[in-house]
């Protein structure tokens, strides 16, 4: 597999720090989607770009060791999660894809709002991450 020969030193050092910032920003975007700009897609995309940056800066094998899961199944899990939240509402006899929300008193966060939409958004984010990384991986792995 031909590694991308770029002056690794700068990229590797920067990316080691930047990746974590991007990851946190992605998670923040995902969680804040409900009331402020953000949401499943954008969160997933940012997370995916963080992982791609990782692949860019180091070669495929090391990242494979650190992130052992096969991203196709991540995507599959994500889509399953999304569809099951919809399917779940059938079990309650409510029209398909109904989301509910309620306010709970959580110890740390105080009065927060838990909704099934976040599970749906999580599914979407996972799927987006899985798909983008699969595509990037399969193209770069193919190399030959």
């Amino acid at each position, binding site marked *: 597999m031909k590694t991308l020969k770029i002056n690794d030193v700068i990229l590797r050092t920067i990316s080691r720090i930047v990746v974590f910032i991007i990851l946190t920003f992605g998670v923040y975007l995902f969680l804040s989607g409900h009331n402020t700009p953000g949401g499943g897609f954008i969160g997933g995309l940012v997370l995916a770009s963080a992982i791609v940056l990782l692949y860019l800066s180091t070669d495929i094998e090391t990242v494979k060791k650190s992130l052992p899961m096969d991203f196709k199944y991540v995507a599959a899990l994500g889509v399953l999660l999304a*569809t099951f939240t919809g399917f779940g509402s059938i079990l309650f006899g409510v029209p398909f894809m109904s989301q509910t929300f309620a306010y709970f008193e959580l110890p740390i966060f105080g009065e927060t709002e838990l909704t099934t939409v976040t599970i749906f958004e999580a599914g979407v984010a996972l799927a987006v991450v899985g798909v983008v990384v699969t595509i990037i991986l399969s193209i*770069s792995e193919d190399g030959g």
Partner: protein
Amino acid sequence: MFSINFVILIPFIVAALVPFLYRRYKRIHVGWFVLFVPITLFVILARLIPSVASGKTYVHTYEWIPTLDFNFTTYLDGLSMIFALLITGVGSLVILYSIFYLSAKESLQHFYCYLLLFMGAMLGVVFSDNLMVLYVFWELTSVSSFLLIAFWNHRKASRLGAQKAMLITVSGGIAMLVGFIMLHTMTGSFSIREIITTISEFTDHDLFIPAMILVLLGAFTKSAQFPFHIWLPDAMEAPTPVSAYLHSATMVKAGIYLVARFTPVFGTDELWFWVVSIVGMITLFWGSFNAVRQTDLKALLAFSTISQLGLIMSLLGLGSIALQFGYSSDSILYTQATFAALFHLINHSTFKGALFMVVGILDHELGTRDIRRLGGLMTLMPFTFTVALIGSLSMAGLPPFNGFLSKEMFFAATVHIMELDIFSLPSFGMIFPVVAWVASVFTFVYCMIIIFKAFLGKAQPEKLDKPIHEAPIGMLLAPMILAALVVGIFFFPNLLGQYILQPAMSSIYPTFGDTADLTPNISAWHGINPELLMTIGVILVGALLFKFLKLWKPIYGLFSSRYTFNALYNYVLASSVSGSNVVTNRYMNGLLRHYLMYIFLFFIVAVGGYLAYSGAFSFDMSTNAPFNVYEVCLVAIMAVAALSMLFAKSRITATLLNGVLGYSIAIFFVIFRAPDLALTQLVVESVTTALFLLAFSHLPEWKKENLPKQTKVINGIISIAVGLVVVLVGLSVMDYNQFDTISSYFENAYELAGGANIVNAILGDFRGFDTMLEVVVLFIAGLGVYSMIKLRAKKEDENIEDQ
């Protein structure tokens, strides 16, 4: 008592059983089992003759598709009784004959299966009263005739003959179907009986004439009338029992049955009289004229069948004139023609059936049917010769045989027609007797050819495959029965007339009350009258022409074979194939650019054209939002970036320019207050550019677009036009504000969906289904990319697919 529906179904049921019987009883010839079907049916129907003769009709309905009024109604009356008896009677004789004709090594189960399929279908045509069910069986007869003609499917000639027969009869059938639908639209019912009663008020309906012509088209193609006769000679590729059964006695008579059945419907119209009689006359002449030149006996009989069918058809046409005058004492003068038609129908089946079986014997025993190699068979094959003699003399219309009676009545009808003064007959009436007479002369000539060329003269054993010997008794049984019938009918014609023909007359002329006085008393001798003189003339001139046959034979070489209808049929098929190949390859040339150009052109012409034509374009700037300087420069940047993409030298610059476009759109999204979109656009744009660069590592650097100058200009014009149309429609849509959008509902998203970000609420909750499906799209894309890269075609299974 069996209902007629069941009678029609028996052959189909037995046809399904034949393959099992064939496998079960290897030793016995499966034909014997099959023989029971027509015989039992014949007996059942024969028992009904007396009651049908007394005017009783049997109706039985089984609802097939009630909502569409397709009911399987069967209707037994005089006319259908004649045909049913013919089908089952001749059928049993043919099957008896085929048991000896077809050797055991042929695929008998197929043969008998098709034959029974045909018999059931033919009975269906003759009995069914519902137009659609009649069409169902009509097409089944074409299909079974296709299968039977192509029985020896390894021979190219029989395949082509079968295809020609099927194409012509099915096209005629489809034309007839359209005629039936027109009838249904006019009268509102599918049942023939109801149509007959209500048709009188629709005669001036503008669908009446087209329906008539289309129904006639169906009849003419099936009965091999003049322009469509070309399939019958090629259908002779079928085994002889099939030719004897389908292509002389029953299937080709379906068209005649149709014309007879629809005479009360369309008969009152003058056009019907002219078309049916004229086409009948032309076929009569053309058939007999061409029969004389044939060297193959079977082809000769085929053309003779065509001419005899023409004769019956013209008689039916002449008979329809009786409907003009309504029921009166002297209407017998005109109904006589129809009576003659039915009478000749039966006679023709008898003598033509016998002749075909004789030819079958010659072919089976001596291995050839070519007149030039036959001769002198009289002494060595006495029985065959006697049958052939009876058959051909009866066809020629000589006294001691039934052919003479019906030929006499034919001449009488043609003479009577001249005296009428309606339908501008005085001027054209003359052609009927003249053509009838000339055609009968030729008929006489080719009957003499059959007798003298085939049986008399000196024997040429060296030219035959097998030594001349008499056929086994089994094969002779059937033709001898038919020959006996030929002679029997001559001596007791009125037995036939009174019991079978008379009830049929009442079904052709339902409004004519008691048909007793419609049926003339058939007698062999009724003084010197024009018909007798015409017959004597035929015999004399015929003998003369036959004697000097070699003298005038070359006239057949006058018009070359290029202008026959056969050549026309082949030309049409061949040119349609090659022509469509040229045309289709012209526009389906595999070039994506051409396809896209056609699509864009259609878009410009349709949308742009209609926009201009309907004046839908409207434009005003007043309601536009204000804009300031930096937005204008952003637009300018995007425009410049887009245009320079066209002239980018390397693919990297092009991709970067695409990146510029993407990011400036992201900025626009921010300006237009769509933060979510801006975020998504930014990341998607960067990932897409990354993908582009990744893909570039596997793709070559692009060469300069070396499209010819002219195509570049066309592409330019098309793209500008497409852009223009999009702009114009966009501007007029901006100006159209009759409705306000439904999105005001989403504004109280906080109460409804518990989220402040309306866009995310829409995506997650209001239109969550779209998002879910969209994630599935993403998933398929990801999986698709993975499988496309991992699944490589191995070399060896390349060859199948590669053209």
